[in-house]
């Protein structure tokens, strides 16, 4: 609970620090803030408490997801160094927005009431709309911001509409009470308003986690958004979205499982297919990562479909494995784009020769995204498939996912091939600060550590 208050307070401090002459202090300060929040958050472990008249519940689920989201943000932050040199007038605002958006993310994993879910989602989204358009000199960034804002507002409306219908059907916003009303009578399944509301909620959240067929904004927005915020968008926002989705379905709508499951299965299959097939044809690394992020939403939804006691730790592990790998990929992409001015795979040519460390970080992250052993991504996929296999009717979905995972190897290796097997040409080595190097080493080590000893994270929930 203190973590929400701290994050808000630190966000305001950042806002004021932004007025200072020396804006260099913002980055170390934000890192310090996040480290404090990370530590304080852990104090709530095994100490379930309700706050604000049962609006929020901080349980282990909330603490675990808050932990990995704060940690992911910590790992992303160093790559914002880029912005400091640009000497942006509004630098303080970005750091403040980042912390504010985290407040929204934390609320999304600890809500007890649909209103809190909505408020959390809005806090997170509005910050992201600004971030998407934050590169004011770029037309693409402005386009991304506008697109994201228009689409996002529309789907937020859909989500809110759904919540209101659920309220109409059950008379409450509290997720435990919603669950109880369904348990009393089988009414929930047949009540048209209830089912419609549920469907709208599923659509609204699917948009936020870029699940197909509500994914169409993803490639454009990801491409236009400044890379470091894309990294944030595709990791923290997605983790919060999937965690909120699972919590909602598990805590509120478990009883009407049969009515929403077919929809979700359809969404998942579509997401997997569109994400993986879409990524195959991309020539642009950033767009490829955007499609890959769609496909990973599909894998995470598979754990949701499994809907058993292993789902939550599968989602937790998968989110973090996916986040570390994505951060490394986007982080290096940002450095490459800055130096070589292109986002295509060709821009990575010869990186293995000129910058072995960057190449290694990307390789490990691609192996992890592809789900190859020795990396966290393998166990992420393994846990997801394993939790789903308890449900024998879903064997076919696993087969589909396995085949598509093989497709994934194909496009993830395009960049690896470019880095190691194509000559660098006249590309000079990329200048990287020692701090970023250290960060990349940490991220890579984390990915490999979880690939060797997955129990460190998978057994905590």
């Amino acid at each position, binding site marked *: 609970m203190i973590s929400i208050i701290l994050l808000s307070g630190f966000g305001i401090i950042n806002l004021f620090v932004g007025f200072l002459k020396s804006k260099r202090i913002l980055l170390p300060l934000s890192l310090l803030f996040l480290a404090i929040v990370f530590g304080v958050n852990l104090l709530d472990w095994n100490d379930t408490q309700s706050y604000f008249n049962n609006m929020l519940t901080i349980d282990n689920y909330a603490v675990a997801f808050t932990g990995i989201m704060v940690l992911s943000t910590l790992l992303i932050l160093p790559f914002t160094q880029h912005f400091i040199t640009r000497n942006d007038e509004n630098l303080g605002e970005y750091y403040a927005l980042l912390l504010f958006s985290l407040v929204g993310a934390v609320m999304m994993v600890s809500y007890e009431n649909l209103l809190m879910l909505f408020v959390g989602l809005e806090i997170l989204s509005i910050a992201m709309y600004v971030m998407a358009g934050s590169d004011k000199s770029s037309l693409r960034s402005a386009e991304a911001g506008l697109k994201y804002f228009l689409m996002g507002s529309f789907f937020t409306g859909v989500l809110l509409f759904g919540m209101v219908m659920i309220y109409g059907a059950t008379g409450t916003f509290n997720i435990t009470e919603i669950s109880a009303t369904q348990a009393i009578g089988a009414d929930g399944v047949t009540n048209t308003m209830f089912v419609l509301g549920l469907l709208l909620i599923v659509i609204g959240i699917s948009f936020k986690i870029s699940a197909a067929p509500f994914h169409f904004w993803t490639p454009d927005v990801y491409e236009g958004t400044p890379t470091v915020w894309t990294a944030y968008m595709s990791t923290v926002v997605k983790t919060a979205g999937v965690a909120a989705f699972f919590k909602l379905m598990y805590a509120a709508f478990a009883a009407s499982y049969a009515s929403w499951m077919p929809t979700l299965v359809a969404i998942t299959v579509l997401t997997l297919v569109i994400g993986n097939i879409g990524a195959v044809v991309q020539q642009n690394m950033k767009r490829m990562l955007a499609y890959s992020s769609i496909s990973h939403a599909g894998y995470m939804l598979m754990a949701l479909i499994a809907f058993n006691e292993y789902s939550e730790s599968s989602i937790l592990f998968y989110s973090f494995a996916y986040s570390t790998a994505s951060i490394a990929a986007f982080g290096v992409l940002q450095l490459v784009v800055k130096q070589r001015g292109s986002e295509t795979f060709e821009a990575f040519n010869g990186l293995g020769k000129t910058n072995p460390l960057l190449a290694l970080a990307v390789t490990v992250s691609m192996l992890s995204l592809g789900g190859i052993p020795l990396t966290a991504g393998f166990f992420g996929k393994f*846990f997801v498939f394993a939790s789903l296999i308890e449900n024998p009717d879903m064997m076919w979905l696993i087969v589909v996912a396995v085949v598509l995972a*093989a497709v994934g190897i194909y496009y993830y290796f395009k960049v690896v*091939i470019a880095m190691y097997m194509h000559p660098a040409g006249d590309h000079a080595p990329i200048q990287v600060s020692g701090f970023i190097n250290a960060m990349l080493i940490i991220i890579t080590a984390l990915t490999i550590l979880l690939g060797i000893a997955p129990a460190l994270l998978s057994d905590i929930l």
Partner: protein
Amino acid sequence: MITALLLFWPALAALLVLLIKGQGAKKVAFIATLVEFAIALFATVNFVPDATTQFALDMPWVERAGIGFSIGMDGISLLMVLLTTFLMPLIVLSSFKHDYKDPHVFYALVLFMQTGLIGVFVAMDAFLFYFFWEVALIPIYFIAAIWGGARRIPVTFKFFVYTIFGSLFMLAAFVYLYFQTAGTGIAAHSSNVNAFYQLTLDSATQSWIFWFLFLAFAIKMPVFPFHTWQPDTYTESPTQATMLLAGIMLKMGIYGVLRWLLPVVPMGVSQWADTVLVLSIIGIVYASIIAIRQQDLKRLIAYSSIAHVGLIAAGIFALNEQGLQGGVLQMLSHGINVVGLFFIIDIIFRRTNTREIASLGGITQTTPVLSIIFLILLMGSIALPLTNGFIGEFLLLSGVFQHNFYFGAFAGTTIILGSVYMLRMFQGVMFGTKSEATEGFADLNFNEKAVLIPLVIMVFWIGLFPNTFLSISEPAVGQLLSIINR
């Protein structure tokens, strides 16, 4: 503990090698592989030849899912580990005259791959096996794709995607089997090899699991018609990678059949054994005929490798003691012969800059030592008595004959066809008149002898005293048969 040491020492050495800049890396790598071989010999001396799994280490790994870090060795594993650790120093030594760019990365990858290979042979847990299976693939992909020939990028990519595709099916089958083991809830299941052996599945299930697993192993070996990646990959890879692929890595596939296919789904195996036999025999004849037509030496040996592996697969799927024992022994022999032959081709290529049979010839005139060693390895390869190939192929063929006379008759053509392409190669390369390319061909230097002489010794050792090795694997093979026939 010895098993863990065997497993982690190369990985540790790989990290060490990474830190050494320049050509000193190869020396450190060589010493590391020698140490590894010494550890393997120590294990062999302490090995009690019975059917148990020895030097076992069993620790929880992913407790939530009941997956253990279980490693250990029975007779079959031990022989595979011996083969790997014996060939590794020679493979490293064979590269001493090459100046690969970024040697520290090259040798680190080689050592890292050794950990993967050893891991495959000692893993006693299905997921651990899968884990090392993929761990072995990644370094060899990079070795072949970075240091390979002109067409290396598409060729190795095909190899990589092909094998990953196969192994994902294996993973799916393992996950299914794992959920069939006793217990409810994830933590109660087990992926230990013994838990898999105790499964009693109905024959329809066994049938599809057989194909899921067989696909992965067949691609790796490779068995016809899953071999299409192999000739190109062998040809385009740098020699050391080809040696690793042909000498050791294809044994992963055969070992996988022995450990994870035959005893796990015996009913599926007996349903499909004849199909596999037919495929293998087609592979033998088909690959041999193509080998006869080859002009490129490396491609020729690549096709001959498909033929030899076809015979091993046929012998194993005959499902009797001769066939299985022959398969195990022939894995050793094939590894030794093929590494030697690829090295000789490498020697010829480095001196003449060509691998075309037509542009070579007359090498014997100046190279007595090379000629003799080449001939011995060749004879081993075409199964002349007194050499290692004879024992293995004899056992394999007698296994196949026991199973079915006609299969045996067709499989037996391997010996005739093998002599045709091997002797044709030897004649074209070594005899005849000197060509422009082979003018002034120097005999073996010390380094090359140091690689080839241990191989020649092994050719005769296995040929004359096969019992040294057969007695190690015999109890394990016997137990395997009793599980299959249960």
